[in-house]
């Protein structure tokens, strides 16, 4: 298997950015106050990156405290390199998600590839072996050639890095809207596995212990990447120097070498060199541990000559780790690095004076309290409800002429967010490590945990920018509930959440208001599900051209007690009954139908009955885990009609369905209306009693709406069918009567003429 060759290295960034360029005057004053003197140029550069939004969460920190950080099985919450929860039998799942939006806008292939590499090292820094990746992607309309190139580059970058490093990409999501045209979103989640008693820490400790550099050599790439991610894109060629180059081969060696180093017991603490490079890792590890460090940059292994100390401190070269190693055991780590062909160097030692001393040979580059760097100022920006919201809420879809149902269904299936993503995930190795029980294409990916058999985990990423644009609070609630619903459909119960919050500038009051509301929505839904938010990432300043929709993306991890008891999307058997679990009513406001068929993004989102949705989620999870149902799939974008089409396509079987039109609602609303908490299941007729018992136990509405069979999807209106299953559509005649080949052709983006 050949990976894509690396391209040319970046130009020196020192030439394009003055040290401290991102600092406000008040922040410069604060730095002088803390140091009791003027900072040197090198120190200004360090404060610049450490106090950037990307590293310091200056505008978001106070709001993020609203997210619940407690829950059953929680082992590590926010504050470490990644969160961790127990999956049973003494094993922990470690997971985290991060954005790589700005780099992917400038250099799609390398931006996406290093996004994958970076999140893998966060998981590795917890002592865990990375076992799965997921991506949440947003792009402009794919018929724009520039956008198409970006999509191609990002997907190839994820494939090029993930496939080579040997971590399967097991799922994800992709959606398109004009607001992402120049500001694509690339959010990558990674899951790792580690024994609970072997979870590593990033707290430096033990005066006299060695500070060890491990991994690839340091070059000038990615200079000021963190600062770059904390401002709007200028669209200048100079932005390129802020993008790192990934080397998945070195990344793979680093995984093996780091895990072997940890297995020796000689490693006290470790952290990856990510945003802000050595500056960040040195200061954070020292500050967390309440110790000092004395290091010499002159010893840092380099791959280019003539680098200044500032460049070494700020380089974001990839595939590097910083280790604190017990005194006297450095040689063991050197041996392991040598075996894997990586550089290793003792660059300094832990001290007991709480001072970070950084030297370059005989010169002292800085001597300061590392907490000055890590404890950045926090801001509480103004928040004002955006003016556009009132106008959008006033829109009433009742005035629209309903589209022809079959045409609308085909248009929805063709929409990039709804269409099959096979064209994407067939480019990703989603099987390596041979744990992928439910591969991409389902509501959530399911992996077995061999070490804790028969247990398994499920993972999903969810977010809907359009919903958050129309109502950030409801959008935040929906992102969490839809993630939990996706987990339920594969038989998993929610265990933990991590998130990527993608927004425009927090310094704009209308944007900051949407940020706060979205976080409130996420917090509310997580509390209702009793699931902790174990970490996350905020990406502000996504506003090249126009600001993006507020786009919080939620990654949710679920547990399965017995991974053999899972379900998929597709119908499995002719003659099975089809039933709808949960609330029955969907709405056209803010729906994919309005956007894809009518070209309208407007309407008033209804806040879901969260406790009813949570009950429906628990009911379906129980039904899947107990083997009562043969398949399960939630009604998401495109409503029940799209859900039924997806079940038919995935199973290769048609269906006859009758939907209740008793309350004289519009056919398009019945077919394509959206609301969370509606799940389509199929089951053997003999299992209906058991499903009914579950529905009663959870007080969840349950209705049989049809049966599986034939080669067409036929959906009509009528009175509710008997318990024996649906008969022919009622007097109104079928709204939909489509053969599977037509649906498949609509959903297949690959076979589409360019």
């Amino acid at each position, binding site marked *: *298997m*050949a990976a894509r060759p690396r391209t040319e290295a970046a130009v020196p960034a020192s030439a394009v950015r003055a040290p401290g360029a991102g600092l406000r005057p008040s922040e410069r004053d604060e730095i002088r106050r803390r140091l009791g003197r003027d900072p040197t140029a090198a120190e200004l550069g360090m404060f610049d990156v450490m106090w950037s939004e990307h590293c310091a969460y200056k505008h978001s920190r106070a709001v993020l405290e609203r997210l619940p950080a407690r829950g059953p099985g929680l082992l590590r919450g926010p504050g470490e390199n990644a969160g961790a929860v127990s999956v049973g039998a003494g094993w922990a799942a470690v997971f985290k998600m991060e954005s790589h939006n700005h780099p992917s806008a400038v250099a799609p292939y390398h931006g996406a590839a290093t996004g994958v590499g970076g999140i893998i090292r966060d998981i590795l820094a917890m002592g865990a072996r990375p076992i799965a990746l997921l991506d949440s992607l947003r792009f402009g309309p794919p018929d724009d050639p520039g956008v198409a190139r970006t999509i191609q580059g990002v997907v190839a970058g994820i494939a090029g890095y993930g496939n080579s490093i040997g971590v399967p990409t097991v799922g994800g999501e992709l959606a398109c809207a004009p607001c992402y045209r120049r500001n694509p979103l690339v959010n990558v989640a990674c899951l790792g596995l580690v024994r609970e008693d072997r979870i590593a820490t990033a707290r430096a400790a033990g005066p006299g212990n060695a500070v060890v550099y491990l991994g690839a050599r340091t070059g000038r790439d990615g200079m000021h990447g963190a600062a770059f991610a904390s401002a709007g894109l200028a669209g200048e060629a100079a932005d390129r120097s802020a993008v790192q180059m990934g080397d998945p*081969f070195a990344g793979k*060696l680093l995984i093996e070498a780091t895990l072997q180093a940890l297995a020796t017991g000689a490693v006290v603490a470790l952290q990856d060199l990510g945003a802000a490079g050595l500056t960040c890792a040195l200061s954070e590890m020292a500050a967390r541990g309440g110790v000092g460090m004395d290091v010499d940059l002159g010893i840092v292994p380099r791959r280019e000559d003539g680098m200044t100390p500032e460049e070494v401190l700020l380089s974001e070269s990839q595939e590097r780790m910083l280790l604190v190693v017990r005194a006297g055991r450095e040689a063991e780590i050197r041996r392991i690095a040598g075996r894997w062909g990586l550089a290793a160097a003792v660059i300094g030692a832990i001290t007991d004076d709480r001072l970070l001393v950084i030297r370059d040979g005989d010169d002292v580059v800085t001597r300061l309290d590392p907490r000055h760097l890590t404890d950045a100022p926090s801001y509480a920006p103004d928040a004002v409800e955006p003016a556009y919201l009132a106008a959008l809420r006033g829109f009433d879809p009742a005035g629209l002429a309903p589209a022809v149902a079959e045409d609308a269904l085909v248009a929805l299936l063709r929409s990039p967010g709804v269409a099959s993503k096979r064209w994407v995930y067939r*480019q*990703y190795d989603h*099987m390596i490590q*041979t744990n992928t029980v439910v591969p991409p294409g389902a509501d959530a990916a399911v992996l077995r945990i061999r070490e804790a058999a028969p247990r398994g985990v499920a993972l999903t990423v969810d977010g809907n920018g359009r919903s958050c644009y129309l109502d950030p609070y409801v959008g935040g609630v929906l992102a969490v509930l839809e993630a939990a619903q996706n987990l339920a459909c594969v038989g998993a119960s929610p265990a933990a959440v991590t998130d990527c919050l993608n927004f425009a500038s927090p310094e704009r009051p209308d944007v900051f208001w949407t940020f706060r509301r979205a976080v409130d929505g996420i917090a509310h839904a997580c509390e209702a599900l009793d699931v902790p938010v174990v970490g996350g990432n905020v990406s502000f300043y996504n506003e090249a051209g126009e600001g993006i929709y507020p786009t919080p993306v939620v990654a949710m991890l679920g547990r399965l007690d017995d991974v053999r008891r899972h379900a998929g999307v597709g119908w499995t058997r002719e003659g099975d009954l089809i039933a709808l679990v949960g609330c029955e009513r969907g709405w056209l406001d803010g729906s994919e139908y309005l956007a894809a068929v009518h070209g309208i993004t407007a309407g008033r989102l209804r806040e879901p009955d969260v406790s009813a949705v949570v009950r429906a989620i628990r009911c379906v999870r129980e039904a899947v885990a107990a083997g009562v149902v043969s398949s399960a799939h939630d009604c998401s974008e495109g409503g029940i009609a799209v859900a039924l089409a997806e079940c038919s396509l995935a199973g290769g079987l048609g269906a006859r369905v009758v939907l209740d039109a008793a309350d004289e609602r519009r056919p398009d609303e019945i077919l394509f209306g959206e609301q969370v908490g509606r799940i389509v299941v199929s089951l053997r007729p003999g299992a209906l009693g058991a499903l009914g018992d579950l529905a009663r136990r959870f007080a969840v509405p349950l209705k049989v709406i049809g049966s599986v069979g034939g080669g067409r999807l036929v959906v009509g209106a009528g009175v509710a069918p008997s318990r024996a299953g649906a008969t022919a559509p009622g007097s109104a005649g079928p709204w939909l009567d489509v053969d599977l080949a037509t649906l498949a052709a609509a959903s297949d983006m690959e076979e589409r003429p360019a």
Partner: protein
Amino acid sequence: MNIGIVVFPGSNCDADTYHAVRDVLGHHGQYVWHEERSLAGLDAVILPGGFSYGDYLRAGAIATTSPAVRALKPYVAGGGLVLGICNGFQTLLEAGLLPGAMQPNLSGQFRCEFVHLRTERADTPFTCGLKPGDVLRIPIAHAEGRYLIGPAGRPALAAYRQVVFRYCSAHGDVTPAVNPNGSEDAIAGVASPSGAVLGLMPHPERASDELVGGTDGARIFSSLATWIATGRRVSMRPVEVH
């Protein structure tokens, strides 16, 4: 039985192969570090999938300079059995242990998906538990899997019955529509004339467990185990067939 799985820097299917050999099939497997100079004592050697040395040059090219791959020639000359999977197949081609060459997939993209394979030859150590015509469902995962042999090599390939697997439909039909990478003559797996060395692009270790990927791939490992257990030997003087 003692099966060696060679680990190169950048191998990433070594653990999966080890798992299939040991945990699923219950045979003894051991990792062989790429710096190993002797393969003596091993009943069979597997070159697993991955990106050996990063594959920034031609896939498998640098691996051929490793001591372990250099040791393959004398090992095979002494009757040893070698299975190259994906990157391992590419390495066997680069090392000249099998004829032909690999090019990037016609799609220009990495492909990870299940394919069907038609068994063309069942008298090798790796296919002795199969019948000619048997269809196996096994996944591929590669960017460079377009096997080419060319007019110069084609007659010998046919004469020595070296094609062991072809891409086919679920029913065993070989058509362009089910050729996932544009391989010449839909070739998915090639053996040495004696059958002692087999290279194939699909990953049998990913289809060795009912819960993940089914068990069709396990039939290749089981064939190997049966062959070794019954003490069969490959004929070092293969018969040319016209």
